[in-house]
């Protein structure tokens, strides 16, 4: 598993954000939260909306945990993290329902599922519970952005191939490869994009590095 635990001094803000987007991208590198990544990414807009919700939940939960870490008893830290995530997910769920009902009608079902996203709780455990406020904020931001960008890419890929449109605007008549809009096609899309991600990274390293770090991991 390429998730690294961060007990030592944290790198700078820019480094942390880039880390979330590239080196430890939640979807393409850590392979966490793949189920929701498959469920919502039939279109770009759905991916964008859920990505933004995850970004908020990740930052708010990380900040809460780092501020309250002295109060959380280590033996019950996982249940407490779950409660913290659930609180922020519910708060965002209620706010979306109140202020953006049209968006909520589309993603409401999936927003509630963020409680069970492995990426969020794993960042709380490996980073927020060991680091001070400022690095934790940027780690949450980086991870949220990494997830958001991954969902956008998968959404664009699947909508383009599955429905022949982009962000709801039809580009080609009919459905070129309907398969990609179906759940199984989602996993293939992620695999293809992950391969692309690995290829780009190896090219950038000029072929110096050996095989890309294997992205192992499991969780919902």
């Amino acid at each position, binding site marked *: 598993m390429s998730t690294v*635990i961060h*007990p030592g001094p944290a790198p700078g803000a820019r480094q942390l954000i880039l880390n979330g987007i590239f080196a430890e991208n939640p979807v393409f590198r850590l392979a966490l939260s793949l189920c929701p990544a498959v469920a919502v990414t*039939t*279109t770009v807009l759905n991916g964008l909306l859920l990505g933004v919700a995850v970004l908020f939940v990740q930052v708010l939960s990380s900040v809460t945990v780092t501020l*309250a*870490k002295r*109060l*959380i*008893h*280590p*033996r*019950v830290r996982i*249940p*407490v993290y779950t*409660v*913290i995530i*659930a*609180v922020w997910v*519910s*708060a965002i769920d*209620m*706010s979306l*329902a*109140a*202020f953006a*009902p*049209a968006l909520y009608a589309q993603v409401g079902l999936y927003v509630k599922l963020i409680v069970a996203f492995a990426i969020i709780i794993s960042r709380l455990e490996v980073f927020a*519970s*060991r680091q001070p406020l400022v690095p934790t904020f940027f780690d949450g931001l980086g991870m949220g952005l990494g997830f958001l960008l991954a969902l956008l890419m998968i959404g664009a890929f699947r909508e383009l191939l*599955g*429905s022949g449109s982009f962000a709801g605007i039809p580009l080609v008549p009919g*459905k070129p490869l*309907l398969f990609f*809009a*179906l759940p199984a096609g989602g996993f293939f899309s992620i695999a293809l994009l992950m391969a692309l991600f690995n290829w780009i990274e190896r090219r950038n390293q000029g072929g110096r590095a050996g095989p890309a770090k294997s992205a192992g991991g499991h969780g919902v």
Partner: protein
Amino acid sequence: MSLNVIQPKPRLSGRELVRIVLSMSVACLAGAAVLGLVYLGTDRYRRASAEAAERGAIHDMLGLEADARLLEVRQYLVPGARRVVYRAAPLGATSGTAHEVTFTLDGALAGERDVPVAVPVGKELTPLGRMFVAARAGQPAGFVVQGETRGYKATIRLFVAMKPDFEIVDMRVIELQDDPGLGAEVAQPWFREQYVGRTAEEIARLDVTRDPMPEDWKQALVALARRAPDGPARHRDLLQRERTRPIYAVTGATISSRAVTEGVRKTVDHFRRRWWLLAPHLEGSL
């Protein structure tokens, strides 16, 4: 804090146990407090936007002017007494009076009274559905009726809008869990536009076909769904050709297409029968 997940854990002392319980309790209490505050801050807006969206959809479907009167009629079942209660009040009203009409299950009038809108209905009443009556000069100008049907995965809820003579003027799928790209296509404007303009008698005999939809008709439906005033005139020939034909199912989603058609059929049929009973008692409220 050190990583202690792999080391054997020491036995819990009593004090430790109390601290664990306290830690969890404080977390839950703080969470509950945050959620309570968020709820208090957002609930008003949530309700207002839900109601505005509903009102907008109804106006839109019936093509009403902004100040048209809308009456909301809620239908309840009184389980023990085998009675059906209809409660009618202006949409969104929080004060004033509601008119309540009660029928037995065979359609005989069992009671009629006025109650303040603020008084909630009894807890034992089971909600059966809602309908909205638009009124112009004391006469019904159109109806929007909520209906439901069993979809491919879960219940599909829909709104059917009708003229006073029960001809369909619009249809909306408001709740749907069928697959995006397949069953969920029944919510697309071109699909629902197929029902528009059919009379209640035609709807009662309406069938679904798996034949592919002719490309010119699909384009006409997309155009008609935009509700341009000259739309029906421009597509008159196609409308004449297609209105007598069955509904074209969404490719790969025959079950969802049949379910929606069945839902529209049932909704219109039930509403027609109910309205004959109810109309004489609602004249005062229109």
